[in-house]
């Protein structure tokens, strides 16, 4: 039997409706990825509105650069939260944990005079330890994640208050502050722009294009069908443009902040983990249908455990970055971050039922949330308005998602 031929014939079931084949291919690929694009369109829409309302102040590189920086703490959480939600769980404790991890870091550095590197290591270990604690109750004791992390939310907030004594701990060392406030230094100090950031942007684009071409080649080598060449080039160009835009903005201002760099690395890493590793696919399977996962011999407990350990480690990263940016740790640090992170994941397309969601989507979601905060504060709107706007956008975004999904079927 000629397998290749057979599937080729089956593919033709998805026949195009007349017209320019290239255009239809583009439309079809747009339609297939509708959900991802809706959220990008939403983000762009929000940016346009704020740009108009702030007379262009919003879109200036300085502001966007700050926006990216501000979004990092929540975005780091969202990257893990989306996987927790995909697995059919929830984590309400991350806000308190960001506070706790920040407080631990500050306490170690300010009160115990520890250097930055040991502080980071110990804080990360603390995050992992908390992850083991919560993961144990959820995976091996069968208490629902909602309850375990709700309990954690209270317990850890209590600990934050204990560690900080209700006051702020500051200041941090210069090297520690750099994590949240520093920018990638220039290679040539007299260069007119931040050359290293520009260079990094080019390297990233180069790697991306190289990777995609290699992937395509290997598909062809296996004898699989690949998308039309023009479509492929178009997609490469579009994505490269987005990368160039993001790097360009930051290069134009002061360069890439270290924190944003960390976020980018985590995003790529977590997306890879979700899509390309056995662990990641098992998370989706467990969230999609736990019974089917069990009947397929997937180790549900261990996967859940590891997931919460990873989430714990991420709260440490987020806490470190947050403390570094503020140069202080306080009793209320990280308050309500859990809700922003959950909202980010959901806006980014994660299903509250589990089984669905993407890491890139969560990043878009985090940017949506940060953009609203940023835009409204540029307009000097007060906090009450920010809460209301964020709430309504969440509602609206999820509705758009549901509506567009309905139309797609």
């Amino acid at each position, binding site marked *: 039997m000629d397998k290749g031929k057979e599937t080729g014939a089956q593919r033709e*079931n998805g026949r195009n409706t007349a017209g320019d084949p290239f255009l239809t291919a583009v439309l079809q690929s747009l339609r297939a990825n509708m959900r991802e694009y809706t959220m990008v369109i939403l983000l762009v829409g929000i940016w346009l509105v704020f740009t108009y309302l702030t007379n262009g102040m919003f879109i200036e590189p300085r502001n966007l650069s700050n926006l990216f920086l501000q979004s990092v703490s929540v975005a780091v959480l969202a990257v893990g939260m989306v996987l927790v939600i995909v697995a059919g769980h929830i984590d309400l404790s991350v806000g308190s944990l960001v506070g706790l991890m920040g407080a631990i870091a500050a306490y170690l550095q300010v009160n115990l005079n520890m250097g930055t590197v040991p502080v980071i290591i110990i804080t990360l270990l603390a995050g992992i330890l908390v992850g083991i604690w919560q993961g144990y109750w959820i995976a091996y004791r069968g208490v629902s994640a909602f309850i375990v992390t709700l309990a954690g939310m209270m317990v850890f907030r209590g600990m934050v208050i204990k560690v900080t004594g209700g006051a702020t701990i500051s200041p941090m060392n210069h090297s520690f502050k750099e994590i949240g406030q520093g920018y990638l230094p220039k290679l040539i100090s007299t260069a007119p722009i931040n050359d290293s950031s520009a260079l990094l942007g080019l390297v990233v684009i180069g790697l991306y294009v190289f990777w995609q071409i290699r992937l395509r080649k290997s598909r062809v080598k296996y004898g699989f069908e690949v998308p039309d060449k023009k479509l492929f080039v178009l997609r490469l160009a579009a994505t490269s443009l987005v990368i160039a835009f993001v790097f360009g903005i930051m290069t134009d201002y002061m360069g890439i902040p270290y924190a944003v760099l960390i976020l980018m690395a985590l995003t790529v890493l977590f997306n890879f983990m979700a899509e390309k590793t056995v662990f990641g696919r098992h998370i989706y399977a467990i969230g999609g249908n736990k019974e089917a996962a069990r009947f397929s011999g997937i180790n549900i407990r261990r996967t859940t455990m590891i997931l919460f350990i990873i989430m714990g480690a991420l709260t440490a990263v987020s806490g470190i970055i947050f403390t570094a940016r503020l140069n202080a740790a306080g009793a209320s640090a990280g308050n309500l971050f859990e809700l922003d992170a959950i909202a980010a994941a959901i806006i980014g397309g994660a299903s509250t039922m589990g089984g*669905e969601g993407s890491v890139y989507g969560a990043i878009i979601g985090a940017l949506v949330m940060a953009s609203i905060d940023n835009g409204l504060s540029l307009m000097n709107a007060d906090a009450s308005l920010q809460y209301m706007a964020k709430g309504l956008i969440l509602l609206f975004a999820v509705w758009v998602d549901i509506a567009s999904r309905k139309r797609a079927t």
Partner: protein
Amino acid sequence: MDCNQSDYLLEMVGIKKEFAGVKALEDVNLRVKWGEVHALVGENGAGKSTLMKILSGMYPVGQYEGRILIRGTEQSFHSLKDSEKTGMAIIFQELTLVKQMTVSENIFLGNEIARRGIVDWNSTYEFTKKALGEVRLDLNPSTKVKNLGIGQQQLVEIAKAISKNAEILILDEPTAALTETESANLLQIVLELKNKGVTCIYISHKLNEVLQIADTITVLRDGRTIATEPAGNMSENKIISLMVGRELTQRFPRQEHVPGPVMLKVKDLTVYDPDIPDKVALKGISFEARKGEILGVAGLMGAGRTELATSIFGTYGRGISGEIFLDGRKLKPGTPREAIKSGLGYVSEDRKNNGLVLTMDIKNNVMLASYESATKLKVINQNEVIRHSNHFVSSLRIKTPSLEQRVQNLSGGNQQKVVLSKWLMTNPKVLIMDEPTRGIDVGAKYEIYNIMNDLVKQGVSIIMISSELPEILGMSDRIVVMHGGRIVAEMAASEATQEKIMSYATGGVKRG
């Protein structure tokens, strides 16, 4: 149309339906006469279920092209509720009962008997009993649905439809999960309803049933109406050739197998029910399955066949005693992962709940139990994933526009093929197939039998649980019959007859 409209209770004219680039229905016409049983047949993915979802308003007006006329007037349904108002009730291929709720709550879900918003439980129970009586189901109305077998759930669905006083009853593969007796029972119920004036649209892959009860038969192929004929003009072979577009001379490709050494040995297995304490689910079961043979497991629903399979596999039971050896290695109870690693596969009878992750695509479902075989350093090689999935899509003829299609969007039969692929992918030494051809069309069944033969030739030991006796008789080398949680008989296929198996299965003959 120049024919007399009042001839037809229901007409669907020129129906077209497209899913994101996939044409499911291209041009379907269906005309159903008053008071008849109208059968709808066709291969997996031909579009039968889609057509019925359009008819019932599940796919609202605007999502398809074409016209629907009921009693001569054009309809535009926006929801199921709309179609119910015209006296229509549909039982979907995938059951839609709420598992956590009781039988009576389910039957009156959305039609609660209530006064000023307060549910009248006494009448609800009374009517439930009556509705259950009509489908000859002897159940306590307050039993939770999750404690029922699939077959019983199917009957509850029918009771639910009956309780709505439906005039048009649509049944999408109602007997796929039923045993022969239950199927016969259900057909009888359909005929009784017909005598009461209910018009019925009946979808099934079991052609003998179709010929038995249908007045008219419509055949669909690739989203088009191929033929509509009075049942009297049809035969199984004619239907098959219309369905698949070619002749199919033989139903069971029986091959002589040479049994090898014992691959699976079960010794004195006793298992307690995990939900009901002290209830023995399986008692003193001992049997062997050999390399290179097909062992058929027959029995009625509730005989403990699925419990046996899942106990061996490690997903069922409490207080398990006895021993299980796979290829000489002792299996620890309750560890499906270990079982899979030692070479056991289990094709579940309940594909939606235990077999598939509906939100994932075909390729990820195929790989679900064997990612490791496409993995280097814990990283999945997508090319290998695609290669393996492509192989199954073509060898099992899974009808899909792409490997990225969510299995949710596949037709029932094609979903079943994906489950099969998942287990073939694990390269099992012993493969337990629980109702492997449920919901699969005749052509695809034949392909699955061929695959079973190939596997056996490669030295796999197959244990086939089936409620279809012809399948058991047609494919097995050896047959065991279960009744009441025990094995009550074992025989070579050459000695087996339908009557003999049935008498053991009903507990008529004690083991000699």
